[in-house]
């Protein structure tokens, strides 16, 4: 349910991009780290509801594509980066050390927008 706040912000950013780049048809790419508490389905749902009710989107179609990015754990011992699924996975899968830190998976950003004719 907290996805509503960030989806409102997403729609606001998209409207700005639509204005700045004269976009009537396009696709926005959202990158979402899997170590956050955000989920793709609620964002997609809120996105469709918000754009449906917004006159800036009448006769315009901007699709939303969400790419989930896996969490990353950097090991200070063996200097490798491994992919992780949960924020409490702290043991390096490569060497077993606990001397690690999360180095990715916290993203929630608009990567790019594609403009179609």
């Amino acid at each position, binding site marked *: 349910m907290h996805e509503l706040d*960030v989806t409102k912000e997403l729609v606001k950013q998209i409207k700005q*991009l639509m204005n700045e780049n004269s976009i009537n048809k396009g*696709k926005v790419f959202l990158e979402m780290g899997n170590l956050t508490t955000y989920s793709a389905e609620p964002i997609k749902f809120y996105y469709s509801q918000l754009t449906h009710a917004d006159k800036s989107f009448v006769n315009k179609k901007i699709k939303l594509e969400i790419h989930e990015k896996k969490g990353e754990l950097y090991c200070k011992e063996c200097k490798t980066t491994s992919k992780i699924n949960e*924020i*409490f996975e702290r043991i390096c899968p490569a060497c077993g050390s606990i001397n690690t830190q999360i180095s990715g998976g*916290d993203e*929630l*950003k*608009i990567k790019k927008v594609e403009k179609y004719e």
Partner: protein
Amino acid sequence: MCEECGCEENKETIKVEKDLRQENDKMAAETKHKLLHKKVYPINLMGSPGSGKTTLIQNLANYLNPEEIAVIQGDLESDIDKKKLEKDKILTYQINTHSGCHLNSAMVRDALENMQLQGKKYLIIENVGNLVCPAGVKLGQDFNIVVSSTAEGADKPKKYPVIFNEANLVVISKMDIAKAVNFKREDYIKDLKQINPDMKIIETTNTNKESYKKIAEIIRQNHEKWEETESKHQH
């Protein structure tokens, strides 16, 4: 778009790289800076509904001067907690989100515009009772406290790792009923330490008010460091 095969023509790609939390975080950073300038130490207090957040503030007022504490209280509805704290002479501003499951930096900024912080040393922002939504939403705080009661069970860190990951201090409340609810203390502490080995953990019980003394001390020390930082900025 080509009607035959569905391919997109004349594609132009515009690079964006914009975080959706940027606006909120920018406002939070401004709030934090203003509070540093005023030497008021901001704390984000989180936890499940009924975990003991408001009770924690009431007990801290026995070890910190209540006149030096300001509280922003977040709930969907009602001012029950505001009335509780005002009885203890603590300045409290109530935010009712109606349906919002967490506070955000715009709400906190608006609250602060309506509060008189003269003479205050500590700002405790009691977030909406929730272990999911407040996690990662910056408000302008410098310290995160998560209150987790024995009655909720020892599996909370495993089930809600994000909020525990960002906690500087976890308060395990209601230790007086730990046995009655079969609370697995060692498992709980082990899981917390795995998420963040530097995390402070303090157990509290209303049958021993001294258990709150240590928490007050941590907050007082943080405020002193905050004051020092501000003094250095001035010179």
